């Protein structure tokens, strides 16, 4: 295979992995792309600390876990603590530099809904719920969000505030007494987005190779803003792509057909 042929999902995962560094302590919550975290660990960030909310600290799985509590996460971790300790000392204690969240619904200010579609009391669809997200979104020093673009996912208004991003934008976090940065990066299968310094609205800063502005707008439920100089995301390198594909192949072999979370 050659790096010239890669899928948008692969580009998304690899772009997300590039945002992580060796010194990061990363909280890989439910639904978050642990693929990106582990690609980072297996490429440019071998010393990154990965924490799963099941209590595993400094884990290094050889395959992607199916759940946030797979046995290999514990077997390869530096240590495994209780879940109350995880949420009290490690997340609330301010030890996490990056919290990684996925979203069923996302708005332009990085507010996320994974709770219900429709009315909370009489939902059209009852989604799994927030899990660790409400506190991940406010306790981690910053939050990265990753999702595939679709108009039903990236919406003008989310049905439920599962976790708080920048609220109505601007200094809304500060007004609620939240001192952490909140969402600082949105990685989709089409582009990289960063919040505008003032309005905090997500703005496209980089388009993935071959992606047009129209494509981004067509798959987004709000009027997309692009920053002044939109860059092109460098394509996956040989190493990035082979690392990701090997990881997924190992995962398929290990879990028999399951993709891993």
């Amino acid at each position, binding site marked *: 295979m050659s790096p010239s042929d890669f899928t948008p999902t692969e580009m998304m995962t690899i772009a997300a992995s590039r945002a992580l560094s060796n010194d990061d302590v990363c909280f890989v919550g439910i639904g978050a792309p642990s693929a990106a975290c582990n690609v980072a660990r297996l490429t440019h960030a071998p010393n990154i600390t990965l924490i799963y909310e099941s209590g595993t600290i400094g884990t290094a799985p050889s395959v992607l876990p*199916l759940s946030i509590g797979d046995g290999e996460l514990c077997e390869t971790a530096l240590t495994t603590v209780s879940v109350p300790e995880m949420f009290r000392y490690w997340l609330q204690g301010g030890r996490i530099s990056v919290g990684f969240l996925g979203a069923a619904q996302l708005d332009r200010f990085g507010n996320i809904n994974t709770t219900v579609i429709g009315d909370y009391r009489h939902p059209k669809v009852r989604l799994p719920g927030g899990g660790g997200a409400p506190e991940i979104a406010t306790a981690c020093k910053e939050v990265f969000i990753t999702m595939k673009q679709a108009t039903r996912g990236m919406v003008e208004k989310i049905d439920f505030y599962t976790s708080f991003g920048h609220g109505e934008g601007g200094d809304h976090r500060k007004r609620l007494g939240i001192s952490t940065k909140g969402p600082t990066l949105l990685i989709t299968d089409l582009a990289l987005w960063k919040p505008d310094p003032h309005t905090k609205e997500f703005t496209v800063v980089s388009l993935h190779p071959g992606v047009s502005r129209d494509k981004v707008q067509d798959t987004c439920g709000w009027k997309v803003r692009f920053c002044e100089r939109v860059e092109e995301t460098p394509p996956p390198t040989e190493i990035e792509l082979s690392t990701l594909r090997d990881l997924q192949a190992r995962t398929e072999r290990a879990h028999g057909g399951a993709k891993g979370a």
Partner: protein
Amino acid sequence: MAKFQSLREAVAENLRDGDIVAFEGFTHLIPHAAAHEAIRQGRRDLTLIRMTPDVIYDQMIGMGLARKVVFSYAGNPGVGLLRRMRDAIENGWPRSIETVEHSHAAMANAYEAGAAGLPCAVFRGYRGAGLKEVNPEIKSIACPFTGEELAAVPAHRPDVTFIHAQKASKRGDVLIEGIVGVQKEAVLAARRAVVTVEEIVEDFNDLHPNLCVLPHWTIASVVHVPGGAHPSYAHGYYDRDNAAYLEWDRISADRELFTRWMKENVLDAGPEVFAARVKGLQG
């Protein structure tokens, strides 16, 4: 003081209609055998507490045991949604259920507060989160020193907690290893605790001093059920049966298929079947 009993006796003695009950296990050591016995005994109007209600609560809800579910993440781990729980919430089948929804942090803190004998848990949470608006059990409290508003939720105090663990000693002390989750807190928060174990060993004399051990006097009943966590896993004994989780997505999608499966695999079965189910999964 822990009694050694059959699973039938342990459930009959400790779980009553209308009880508040926690079957805990955070993706690991999930007490499937105990949940199936509760289903066989047909308990009713239970309030089910669990951070991550998964297949077992989907089964208990689908069989109509639950009146209320207190939870923070309702998914089939690594697979998708809980279709029986959704059917109960969205369509009231087989009965409508009340839900009390929290974040993981709130649930973990509520167990911790229960174990600590406190009436409530205090933590920094729910800031900007919608659950505050829909769950009246989420309140706030001001730090008397800084004035900071902190979240407060009632402590979990189950009537009974069921967990699955690796080992019990002959005295009834229990050892949990690996991903220990909230099980220690769930046991200490409860009035009564029932523990199914993979193995009963002579004593714990050679254990490292700092492991997760529950003394026999914190436990009502210890039951030897090898494989009792299947299809979840038991660190050091057997791996997760992922095919069973994927299969559950199919089974739970259809009311009749679900009902048939439950009759064949739960109602007409017993705890002894679990040992065989993990045969192929031992590392």
